[in-house]
């Protein structure tokens, strides 16, 4: 009715780190309504791959209806591999914006924590926030998106191999750089999210927002594929199973178990 799949034109694409692609596409609906922390479903076009690939909004440039997606190619025979071959002028089917997104209205200083491919949504988040943003990024080895992020906040880096910034985790980088704030936003692998939650507990930080990941089929809340365990009963089934695609992907750290 009001919403539908959109055929988006590829504006540009480049590989910005090994297997990490930076894709700009033209999208009416996402640039009009989307916000940080929301995601879009991308469809591969290959008729043997039916399910959407959820990819977070990395940046919105409303002036030219442009949407930026930064994603990782996860393997040889994957949908993301197909995406990575697209070039200017190609078409891609998308559905979005989907999910709840981050609460960007909180004025306090915040640490925006991104691990690996969880970093891209932090860019649009930093852009949309009014409060001060410390952006802490964790990589395996090579970094990406650094210049973009630096425009919107102070950026700290952690790398597993110590090739840039702090050798260690994002939390090591936070401590190393003496970063303090009243709000945490985080997106990244589950062990990182667990560590962030622990850290928040220790530091007594209450406003902690985590972006979760789960396999999705519909992306719109209908199939109940993507649930996570929640403290409170969920609005859909009333059984403490919140849908990552609908009630999430962003949850308060205190309302979900993972």
């Amino acid at each position, binding site marked *: 009715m009001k919403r539908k799949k959109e055929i988006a034109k590829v504006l540009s694409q480049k590989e910005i780190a090994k297997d990490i692609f930076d894709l700009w596409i033209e999208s009416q609906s996402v640039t009009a309504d989307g916000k940080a922390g929301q995601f879009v479903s991308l469809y591969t076009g290959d008729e043997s791959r*039916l399910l959407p690939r959820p990819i977070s909004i990395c940046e919105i440039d409303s002036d030219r209806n442009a949407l930026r997606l930064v994603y990782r190619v996860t393997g040889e025979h994957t949908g993301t591999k197909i995406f990575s071959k697209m070039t200017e002028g190609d078409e891609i089917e998308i559905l979005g914006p989907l999910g709840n997104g981050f609460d960007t209205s909180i004025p306090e200083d915040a640490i925006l924590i991104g691990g690996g491919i969880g970093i891209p949504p932090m860019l649009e988040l930093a852009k949309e926030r009014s409060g001060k943003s410390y952006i802490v990024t964790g990589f395996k080895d090579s970094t990406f998106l650094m210049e973009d992020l630096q425009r919107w906040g102070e950026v700290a880096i952690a790398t597993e191999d110590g090739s840039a910034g702090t050798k260690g985790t994002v939390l090591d980088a936070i401590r190393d750089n003496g970063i303090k704030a009243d709000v945490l936003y985080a997106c990244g692998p589950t062990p990182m999210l667990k560590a962030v939650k622990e850290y928040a507990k220790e530091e007594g930080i209450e406003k902690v927002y985590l972006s979760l990941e789960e*396999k999705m*089929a519909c992306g719109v*809340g*209908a*199939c*109940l*594929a993507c649930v996570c365990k929640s403290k409170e009963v969920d609005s859909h089934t009333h059984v403490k199973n919140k849908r990552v695609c609908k009630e999430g992907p962003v949850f308060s750290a205190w309302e979900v178990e993972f």
Partner: protein
Amino acid sequence: MNTKVSIAGVELKNPVMSASGTFGSGEEYSEFVDLNQLGAVVTKGVANVPWEGNPTPRIAETRSGMLNAIGLQNPGIDVFCKRDLPFLKQFDTKIIVNVCGRTTKDYMEVVERLGDEAVDLLEINVSCPNVKHGGIAFGQDPKCLLEVTREIKRVAKQPIIIKLSPNVTDIAEMAKTAEAGGADCVSLINTLLGMKIDIYKQSFSLANRTGGLSGPGIKPVALRMVHQVANAVTIPVIGMGGITSWEDGVEFLLAGATGIAVGTANFNDPTSMIKIKNGIEEYLKTMNFDNVADIIGLVK
């Protein structure tokens, strides 16, 4: 152009409906699909009490299909009647409630509770392969199927559709059993039991180990079974399993399905059902049929 079909005395404006479990209770997809254009909305399975469902991962993509082991998470019949039914009643479409249970009593409770509700048809899911206790047994064993059908029919105020499991040696026998038990209609197929393994983690891709295979990859099996069943029973048949395009829909009608349900295709394109409905109309026009009923079961 008459696209109306009648199932157990209930008239649908067209044969196209959602497949249970892929369309929630219609609400989530109502942003994308005009429910008024559907022959019916078939809701996600509902039990007597809320079910939590299985742990995640609950789904996995497969070549031209997907595996799911949602485990019939549902809010139970109370919430369903209070929230979902009133929502659906706003639309000019038929309401088919899919019912699940672990015991015959579970089913009967839901069916009785729905007796006073403005629900058009009940679809009894005796075939979900993801529920460990019960469920699958009913749909794979003729004796159980006969009993559960009889018991439900005894208390049902609406006509009942028995949803058959494809994981059987002889689908026609199962359909005849449902008919003998008093079913007003049969629907098929539910998912085929499948598995995927994560070769790097060296474990199952689904937390539940096995899941139900759906999507276009299984369409040939579904179509064969629908054809077999349509030629074995006199009650109407609702066909499903991999329907993705209007051409698929026409195949099922020609094979003998009076209604056709669309499941996994919704995940790839939320407007699938509308495209299928429109495509069928175009086909009828091109082929000079005035009435969708004229092509049902044409390929014998």
